[in-house]
């Protein structure tokens, strides 16, 4: 199966200024998909999740347009061809 990650912010710099990354492999959930992403871009891991393997509080991940905060978290299923978007949340001041 193939997944497309859409990335932003400093992740792009760490991925050679690419805004999209295509990842091939087997993934049943967002957790599996992220594991594939970490293999492709190891520097992403600590910037997206904490030491406790929790999504950083001011980041959001969307699978085919739906935030995983409302669809099962890292257990959210992913389909072949899914688009996974990692975006900073609206926060700051």
């Amino acid at each position, binding site marked *: 199966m193939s997944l497309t990650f859409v990335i932003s*912010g400093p992740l792009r*710099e760490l991925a050679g200024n690419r805004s999209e990354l295509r990842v091939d492999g087997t993934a049943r959930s967002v957790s599996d998909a992220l594991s594939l992403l970490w293999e492709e871009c190891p*520097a992403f891991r600590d910037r997206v999740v*904490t030491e*406790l393997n929790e999504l950083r509080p001011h980041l959001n991940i969307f699978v085919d347009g739906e935030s995983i905060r409302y669809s099962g978290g890292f257990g959210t299923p992913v389909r072949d061809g899914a688009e996974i978007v990692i975006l900073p949340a609206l926060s700051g001041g």
Partner: protein
Amino acid sequence: MPETRHITPEPGDVLLLVGTMKGAFVLRADKKRKTWEMGGPYFPGSAVYALAYDNRAGRQRIWAGPQSMHWGALVRSSDDFGQSWTNPEEANVKFPEGTGAALTRIWQIEPGRESEADALYCGVEPAALFVSRDAGETWSLSEGLWNHPQRPRWEPGGGGLCLHTILLDPADANRVRIAVSTGGMYVTEDGGATWRPSNHGVRAQFLPDKYPEFGQCVHKVVQSEVDPSRMFLQNHWGLYRSDDRGENWTDIANGVPSDFGFAMAIHPRDANSAWIVPLESDEFRCTPEGKLRVYRTRDAGGSWEALADGLPQTNAYETVLRDAMAVDALDPAGLYFGTRNGKLFGSADEGTSWTELQDGLPPVVAVKAAVV
């Protein structure tokens, strides 16, 4: 993102590292300290509470601990005064598995003693100490402090539960004192294997027991380079001096408008001289009477004089935070501080007169001074 400007300090220049809630700035001046040039912002959008200049072993290295609200915190460094920065692939300061903790913020980076040129110490939130023995390549949690049985009873202050002060005893390589808000001070005499609370005489206004073994909200502690037995302490209510390396503390709030405050600096060559910026109450936390005044003692806290020449004395409701004051090593010593309202002030005559170096910065949380 804003355009970033750079500076190129010359040998002998004074370097000011200024951390703000939205990035870091680097300023330089020659030894007269009259005209300042500013570079930055570096890490725009990230809070930079920890900055340090490291000139050990021939380095000209700036250390920084930027914390992005979105992407987390890293220790990064620059060997060209900010033109380029390391960007480690893996987070270099992180809690080990099993601690159940995740790094929130880097509060302090302290280069080791001259005798340990590759050592670095890092204080973080949640309150913990990390140590590097390989010039920042790898970091280890100080397990002795983390596993201290009193640690679960530490509580966060207004800024979070942070380890903000690290004092490396200049005369004893195994002795380190740290301060936690709110946990008080702890000291190790065996290089970090074991730690004990060390707060004798320091008040905890907010607890039923006003003089507990631990749990004080220590805001800042400074130690003399020339007489390591001499320390000064700015507490959450309370101004203190120690003449025995911090084992015992004596109240020295003699003639100050308030003994509440955050920032504190000690003279590089005179163990009797120190500076503070008193603030009005722990509710308001602004300069008393709307006057921005630095207070200086020349007699180890026996008396304090107000220094206001060049500082605003009308409607100046300023706050100077715990790490936002620094002193350089020149003679006469230069003194610098930044405010939450984004003003940066400097004095080239040990605080007697002041000049506004910058206005309009984001809220200033850290100021460090060094001679290149």
